[in-house]
Structures are given as C-alpha cells and as structure tokens.
C-alpha cells in the first residue's frame, strides 16, 4: 500500500477489529443484567423450594418457621393498596388534568411541574418520616393501615401525575377541537373526549405506580408496620403488616429456615408483580394506536 493510500485508510483493519471488540464488550454489558436476573431468580426459587405451600399462604407469622405464614401480610398488602389507590389515583389524575388542560404557562405552573419531578426522587424513607410525623402523630391516626396507605399514596402520587400527563398529552388536539366545535364546554371536552382516549395510558401508569407501592418497604418502617400480628386488620385504623416488611423481618434473622420462608415470601411478591405488569403490557398493546385508527 502506498503512503498516499495509507493516509486515506489509516489502519482500517485495526480500527474495524477494535470496533468489533467493543461491540462485544458493549453487548456483554447487557448480558450482565440478564445473568444477574437469572441468578437472582434461580437463587430465590432454590431457597424457597419446599417452603411455598398452602400452609404458608394461610398461616399467621410464628416463632417456628415451619408453622409461619403470610396470611396477615397478604391482607395487609391488599388493604394498603386499596387505600393507596383510592387516594393517589383521583388526586394524581386531577392534578394531571389541571396541569395539561387548564393551567396556563406560567412561573407557578413550571414550579409545580419541577416540584412533581423532584418529589419522585425523594428517598422513600423520607416519605416514611413524613408519614410518621403528619399521619401517625399530627393527625393521630396511629400506626394504622390508613396512615400507611396515605403515606404510600403520597409516595406514588408523582408517578401517577407524570404518567397521566403523558397519556393526556398523547390525545390528538383535533379531538378536542372537534368537541369544542360541537359546543362542548372545557369540562365536557375533558370528561367525554380527553379522558376516555387517555384512559388506557393512565391505567398503565397506575398499575406501574401500584406495583412500585406493593414492593416498597422503607416508607412503612417509620410508620411502624408490625411484623408479628395475630389478627387480620378489620378497619383502616388497625395495625398491619405487608409482604415486604415480613420478608425484611425474616431475612434479617440469622437462621437458614427463616431465610427460606423469606425467599418463599419473595416468590409470592414477584408473582403478584409479574401479574400486575402483564396486565399493564396487555392494556398497552390492546389500546396502542387505537385513536389513530379512527
């Protein structure tokens, strides 16, 4: 190769080889995530093997791992999610409607928006301390389901707002114009045109927010979700425990058998999460692009 050609193709072979090597390096970075995921799932299934049965689902916690179960934790988790959803979904959607449809661009609007984004990044344990101070002490709700559910509601509120905003933003402007042209008021347009079209997107966001809430442990520790309760909560003012708290308690004990039932609890938690996410994906696929077809 002459010098002249050389300057046109400075070490092309070597550069291509380097490109290939790095392509493999970048690819294997993704394999790390996948292999850890498989390792983690394998480890948990193996640890829990033989422990996850009907007795485990239908029993109360116990000093003896072979008799212990997650019944109150399951009830606690379901009740907590109901309270969280009742609080966070209407508030979040209403806030999103206001921010997207009503508010005029202003300093205050962008302040609210920045505030929502930053609320999402506040450590969950800080929400727990907020809940302890405001709900447990100031409002005197005690260490109750209601206090826990409201705390969790505050935690997922920014997620609900942001995803609902995105869903509303995705509704084509032409639909609104059509409604206005027929003489609809602002609220009628929102209620009968925007909300129905944005609903699937909102639902996806809500499910994602709730699956975040189901797995959260830290915010409920200051609230004082108990781990050793022998009753199923009957009212929102009763004390409670949830799956992640129960798992935390069992994991933090040194005995291998408690670790095993912690793993069994994790399997239950992961199955619930997989179910919820499958519903979210199903909704997303079913309704994706439906508006464009019209």
């Amino acid at each position: 190769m002459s010098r002249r050609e050389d300057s046109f193709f400075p070490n092309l072979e070597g550069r291509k080889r380097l490109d290939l090597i790095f392509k493999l390096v970048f690819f294997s970075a993704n394999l790390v995530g996948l292999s850890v995921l498989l390792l983690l799932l394998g480890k948990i299934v193996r640890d829990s093997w033989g422990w996850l049965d009907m007795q485990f689902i239908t029993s109360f916690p116990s000093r003896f791992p072979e008799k212990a179960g997650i019944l109150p934790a399951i009830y606690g988790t379901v009740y907590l999610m109901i309270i969280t959803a009742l609080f966070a979904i209407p508030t979040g959607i209403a806030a999103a409607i206001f921010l997207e449809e009503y508010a005029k661009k202003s300093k205050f609007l962008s302040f609210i928006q920045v505030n929502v984004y930053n609320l999402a990044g506040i450590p969950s344990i800080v929400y727990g301390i907020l809940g302890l101070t405001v709900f447990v002490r100031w409002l005197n709700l005690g260490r109750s389901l209601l206090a826990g559910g409201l705390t969790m509601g505050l935690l997922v509120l920014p997620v609900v707002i942001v995803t609902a905003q995105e869903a509303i933003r995705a509704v084509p402007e032409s639909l609104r114009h059509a409604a206005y042209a027929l003489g609809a008021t602002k609220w009628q347009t929102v209620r009968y045109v925007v909300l129905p079209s944005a609903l699937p997107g909102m639902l996806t966001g809500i499910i994602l927010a709730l699956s975040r809430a189901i797995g959260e442990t830290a915010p409920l520790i200051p609230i004082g979700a108990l781990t050793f309760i022998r009753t199923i909560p009957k009212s929102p003012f009763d004390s409670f425990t949830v799956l992640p708290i129960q798992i935390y308690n069992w994991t933090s004990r040194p005995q291998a058998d408690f670790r095993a039932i912690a793993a069994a609890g994790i399997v239950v938690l992961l199955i619930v999460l997989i179910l919820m996410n499958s519903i979210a994906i199903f909704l997303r696929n079913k309704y994706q692009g439906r508006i464009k077809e019209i």
Partner: protein
Amino acid sequence: MIKSGKDFGRERGIQLILAVAASFSVLVTAFIIISLFEEMSGFFREVSLKEFFTETRWSPLFNPPHYGIAPLVAGTMLVTVVAMIVSVPLGLASAVYLSEYAPDKLRRLIKPVLEILAGIPTIVYGYFALTFVTPAIRAVIPGTNVFNALSAGIVMGIMLIPMISSLSEDAMMAVPMSLREAAYALGATKLEVAFRVVIPAAMSGIVASFILAFSRAVGETMIVALAAGSTPKLTLNPLESIQTMTGYIVQVMLGDTPFGSIEYKSVYAVAGVLFFITLSLNLVGNRIVRRYKEVY
C-alpha cells in the same frame, strides 16, 4: 345552545378542584420540609451544629453520646461509590449498545430485561446481597465482615444499571442522525462515531443520568439496611461493616425509641441532611434531563 350561568359555575368549580389537586404536590413538599424542621430544631437545641458537622463519631447510645454525622455520610458515600463503579461503566456500555449497535429485534429483547431489573423491589435485592453476594465475597476474601459496604454497593450498582442505561440512551437517541451520518461519510467506524460524536454530543444527558443514579444510591434503604451493617465508622475499607444515613434511620425506627427523645430527634436531623443532598442532586439532574427533552 346557550350556556346557562349555572354551567359556568360548575365549570369554575371543577377547575378549582383540579387546581387544588395540582397544588397538593407542592403541599407535600412543604409538609416534608416542615415536619423535618420541627424535630430538627429540637435536636439542634441539644446538639450544636458545630458538633454535628465536625465531630467524627456517631454514637447516640454511648455515655457521653456523640453526634457527628461524618461517619454516616462516609458510610453512605462508600456504598454509593462502589455502586457507581459498577453501574456507570455497565450502564453506559449498555446504552451505547442499545443506541448505536443493537439491531431492532435485539433491542426489543434487551429492553424488557432491563425493565424487569428496574422493577424488582429493593427488598429482593437486599436479600440477594445478604444471601448470595456476601457469601461469594467472603469465599474470595475470607476476612470480610458478614455485613460490608462492598456487597451492598455491588448489588445497588446492578440495580442502577437500568436507570443509567435508559436515561443515557434517551440522551444518545436525541443526538441528530445527521451528525452520525457526517462522521460515517468521513469513514469513521461505529466505535469512533459513538465515542467522538454521540457521547460528546449527549454528554450533559449522560452526566445527568449519573447524577440521578447517585442520588438514588444515597437514598436507597433496604439493601444497606440488610447488607451493609449498623456500625457507624469513618473508613475507606469496603470490606468492613459500616452504617449509612438511611441505615441509621431504619435502625432507630425499628427500635422502641420514644417520641421526643434526643435519639428520636436525631433521625430527623439525619433525614434532613439526606433530603438536602438528594434534593440538590435531583434538581440539577432533572433540569438537565428536561432541557434535553425540550431541545430535540
């Protein structure tokens, strides 16, 4: 049809309700700050600011007690740095592959795996750190403590990979195709395009993803509560048991600390510092990320 006066009242009423809901988020922030400050002021009546920030021991249960936050901050930073050492190269490499190399089919396979990793509850990561990663480390380095910053940091780093990967990928995807095409036209390889064109152009977005991941690591609680230990210590050795700010809060909250005691108030002081650090990081990170979304 002409709208009646009642209709207007209804419209205005609805708008008011929606506005209240939107302002609610600001109220939450206000309540966080108020509730932290109330107990913090009580704490700082008993412990001087000077002691809090310059004392090098954190031992609330000793007599006399010491309240220097340095060991808790140091423990937090130790775990966070380990987490960043794991997550920054892996997350960035993953993002480069997804944005520059991956064929569409493979992208659609890798993205869900990352989403699953991101959706796993932190308590599960904590379990994994304590029962798998720690024994593995102890098998390699026998002197390692059962509770150590390394195990918590490694697992936290893995947890952060999806966050860095997806935020960095967004930033890289936002780099206009024309820039890449110009470089290809000059005979650059993909690697050269990635390192000399795409990454520099997406730099602020990539840095923002690091900042947000850092903030997340500082505030992460369950992994460190299970795996990092509960011995506040000024050390650079990741094989020792340490305590993070979040770990201290959990430890006190699990005990029977009475309301109003100095130990109870100290939680608010630690949480206040935690809140301040994460809020500052998030403000910077989110500002950069959002500017990106608006420009392209």
